[in-house]
């Protein structure tokens, strides 16, 4: 159960005789207050900073843990530039490797998924090297990572491109020496609406029953055996209508505002201390 730190517990006004609801929450958010705080805050915060969100398991949300992790994450972000990237962007990661001559190892690939919250946040890059598909999992806050660059900032139709493993290799091939394409500040993030063609079945997962929008026409390609199996398969597309199940896993506006104000405060303190001028809370889609 989410319990904020002691100083942040706010007593709500009790309403006479109604079902007593006093869930503890991070910050008071009357409509007036949020308007003041909105200045300088990013509406697309969950997409740009998925590591700063709370655990999708409600019972594992712990304010103290999140607070401690957040401090460490912000410290790390002050030391190294962790750029904005999405699933579908092409990212280059330079990590240290003691066994190589240059002590560095650079990998370029398309980000296919971003998982976990807090310091555990991971992202996977996929590329095809010598006709073999390679996926490398990186911890975002791994201290041995020297540099993360976004070579091409863009989004795809899905937030999880795991299907590229069964797609034709051309969709996963990216040049290692690709030149970084700068994203003009203030413009919205481009969405690459390409539909990926899959290889012949069998596939690693049942892409024909999944609702990924980035796959081109899975049904005709699926074999009759799988098509016959479909009527026995549970296709759970009603899950998106379960508003409260989604509420339990997702983030709230109050929480985002709280985290962002913390980040702003941290930034301000560090800038005032004069060590760095690195900006943590920024969005490529909004004007500076």
């Amino acid at each position, binding site marked *: 159960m989410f319990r904020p730190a002691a100083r942040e517990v706010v007593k709500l006004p009790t309403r006479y*005789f109604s*079902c*007593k609801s006093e869930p503890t929450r991070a910050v008071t958010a009357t*409509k007036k207050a949020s308007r003041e705080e909105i200045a300088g805050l990013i509406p697309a915060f969950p997409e740009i900073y998925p590591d700063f969100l709370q655990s999708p398991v409600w019972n594992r949300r712990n304010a103290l843990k999140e607070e401690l992790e957040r401090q460490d994450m912000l410290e790390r972000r002050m030391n190294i530039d962790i750029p904005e990237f999405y699933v579908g962007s092409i990212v280059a990661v330079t990590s240290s490797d003691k066994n190589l001559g240059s002590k560095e190892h650079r990998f370029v690939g398309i980000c296919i998924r971003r998982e976990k919250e807090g310091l555990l946040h991971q992202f996977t890059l996929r590329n095809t090297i010598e006709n073999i598909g390679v996926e490398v999992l990186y911890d975002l806050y791994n201290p041995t990572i020297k540099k993360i660059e976004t070579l091409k900032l863009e989004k795809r139709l899905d*937030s999880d491109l795991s299907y590229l493993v069964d797609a034709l290799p051309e969709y996963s091939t990216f040049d290692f020496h690709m030149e970084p394409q700068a994203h003009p500040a203030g413009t919205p993030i481009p969405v690459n609406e390409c539909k990926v063609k899959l290889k012949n079945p069998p596939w690693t997962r049942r892409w024909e029953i999944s609702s990924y929008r980035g796959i081109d026409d899975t049904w005709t390609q699926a074999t009759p055996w799988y098509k016959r199996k479909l009527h026995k398969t549970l296709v759970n597309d009603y*899950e998106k209508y379960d508003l409260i199940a989604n*509420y339990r896993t997702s*983030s709230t506006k*109050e929480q985002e505002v709280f985290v962002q104000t913390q980040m702003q405060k941290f930034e301000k303190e560090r800038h005032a201390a004069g060590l760095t001028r690195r900006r943590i809370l920024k969005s490529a889609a909004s004007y500076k």
Partner: protein
Amino acid sequence: MSAHRVAASLPRIGVTIGHTPQKLKTGGIEPSRRARLEVLRRIVTRTVREERVELKWNRAVEARPYVERLIQLGVERGPLDEYTAEMMEWWLPEKDLITKMHEVIVPRFQNRDSPFTSLFRLPPQRLQQFIQNKREVWKRYDIGVLEIDGNPFPAIQAAHQEQSDSILDVLLADALRNHQITLQEKLEASTESK
């Protein structure tokens, strides 16, 4: 992460929500997640139509956040948002209720925070289930009233009135005061005697 792109996050739902969804009895159909959602959908539809419903307590507790979320979607995102329209269409299968939601209910809460509903407890009801070999079987149900605030019905609980001049209040206040005084005196007397 879901495959759906959502706009700016919605505010907190200001209502107690359990961390585990209840398994509701689904009357005839095999209980499943889909069946549970169907039960909740019917409750939500009835609540939006009648604005005050009486139902089993656990169901009222379960359905309340769904009603809140639906209203919140309408308030925050408006009727033209794609996600809101999809949710309203599914949760309110009677289409005139979607219009009602956007034109009647949502405008009430434009400047208000959650919670938009109230939940009250009624005394438990004993209802006869069936008769088995001339033996009547009864069951007790906890009943709750779920209502959307601002409905046109008279308030369930009368507004708290400071009626200190009514007969009962005057007599009772006097009685309690004197009772306290006598207790005090008795206490003093007993301490003195010791």
